[in-house]
């Protein structure tokens, strides 16, 4: 069955969220949000999902601190972060390119990353654009570090990096990514050409699994309907 590139990413995210009790998704994240909702559907509703800035897909009612308090309480098992730059040690930069504070390029800011990256056990880095501009040797500004020194309280951190080209897993002890699979239609060479940092290669080349037809149907009906509340524009990729 034919599928869109976004659908492969959503399906891949849903697989990374198996057996999660509670998943939270930040702002401007339609693909992670759809992935979380697909994971919830596949879990039979066991996986809870909080999509920020949604009216129907969250139960926050104690102000802008509640999501972070929840994370610190250990009530959030998985979260998504991104970066204008992401480097090989999983450091992320949401602030800008060049020297702080007068960056050459300035982005919005670090949002909750500098705390959630430490406290949420499974943080999935997600950035569709996989180029040497986004996947860099060393970020210009560390909004949140990929790993911490021994002694620093850090129950959470990065588990995977998903891009438009492939899926990496992250080894915290070695502070290094390992390529886990390459998306259909892409190659290891393409990934090597477009990645500014070193990473480990798998022993055998895997291709990212494609979504089965029944999953695509679930995604295009149930998930498509629910993601419309926070992301009506994005949901148009699935016409009614």
């Amino acid at each position, binding site marked *: 069955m034919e599928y869109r590139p976004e659908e492969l990413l959503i399906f891949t995210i849903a697989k990374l969220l198996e057996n999660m009790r509670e998943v939270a998704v930040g702002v401007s994240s339609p693909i992670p949000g759809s992935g979380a909702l697909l994971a919830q559907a596949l879990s039979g509703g066991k996986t809870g999902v909080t999509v920020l800035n949604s009216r129907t897909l969250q139960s926050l009612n104690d102000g802008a601190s509640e999501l972070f308090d929840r994370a610190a309480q250990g009530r959030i098992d998985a979260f998504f972060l991104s970066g204008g730059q992401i480097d090989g040690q999983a450091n992320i930069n949401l602030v800008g390119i060049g020297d702080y504070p007068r960056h050459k390029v300035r*982005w919005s800011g670090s949002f909750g990353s*500098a705390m959630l990256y430490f406290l949420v056990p499974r943080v999935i880095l997600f950035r569709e654009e996989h180029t040497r501009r986004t996947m860099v040797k060393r970020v210009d500004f560390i909004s949140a570090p990929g790993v911490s*020194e021994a002694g620093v*309280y850090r129950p959470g951190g990065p588990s995977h990096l998903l891009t438009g080209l492939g899926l990496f897993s992250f080894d915290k002890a070695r502070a290094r990514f390992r390529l886990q699979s390459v998306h259909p239609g892409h190659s290891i060479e393409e990934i090597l050409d477009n990645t500014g940092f070193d990473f480990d290669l798998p022993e055998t080349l895997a291709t990212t699994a494609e979504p089965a037809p029944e999953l695509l149907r679930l995604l295009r009906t149930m998930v498509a309907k629910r993601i419309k509340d926070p992301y009506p524009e994005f949901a148009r990729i699935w016409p009614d």
Partner: protein
Amino acid sequence: MPICDLAELVSLIPDGAKIAIPPSRSGVAMAATRAIIAAGARDLHLVAIPTSGIQADILIGAGCVATMESAGVTLDEFGQAPRFVNAVKSGEIRLMDSTCPAIMSALQAGEKGIPFMPMRGLIGSDLLTFRPDYRVIENPMAEGADPIVTLPAIVPDIALFHAPMADQNGNVWIGKMRELMTMAHAAKVTLVTVEKIFDGDLMADPLRAPATIPALYITKIAKAGNGAWPLGLEGVYDIDKKGFSTYAKAAKTSDGFADYLDFGTT
């Protein structure tokens, strides 16, 4: 009498004031923001609780802002905040970059009248590098080494926001926008615009009282219908996407922004 007009409300904001402003989804006083610009405010220290958007961008573009403290300034689906980005690159404003939970915790320290609040995370981030006021101490409860960041309390001179309703006594109903309660508790002066005046005592209404800021925390209130426009107000009206995109496009250039200020709000 806590109820006044918009011009009197914003006249209570002195130049140089540290003003706490809410996130874009949560009661942004845009009508009051335009009145602040009209009044020619200068050197404001904006503290976004914990992020901002069009409100910070328009105040920065109008030259009212000296310091921007936030965890993020963005026009969301309409892209980067252009006047903010421009001012950062040109060095016109001083930045106090942070992360959402640090701003919330520091504001809660202000609410609790304590000098600081500890928070997990941040260690190893460049946010910490550029915030000498954030200090790392050893957790006094730990047996071994356990570094933890302490954040100085945020005590705003002014909290400024927009809410669905207030009553004649000065009580303000905020619904689920609980950060507005924290802002009012922490701030020295709280200025509020509202859609309408509620006929009755909000604190005597068992369903509304739990989500009402008592008048004790409120300095002045001005009625401003559609006062969050072009942003929305939860449960009252949605964002005006057309009105918002007019701003987002105009603000891309200095000239466009100046034209918007002159004509865009009429």
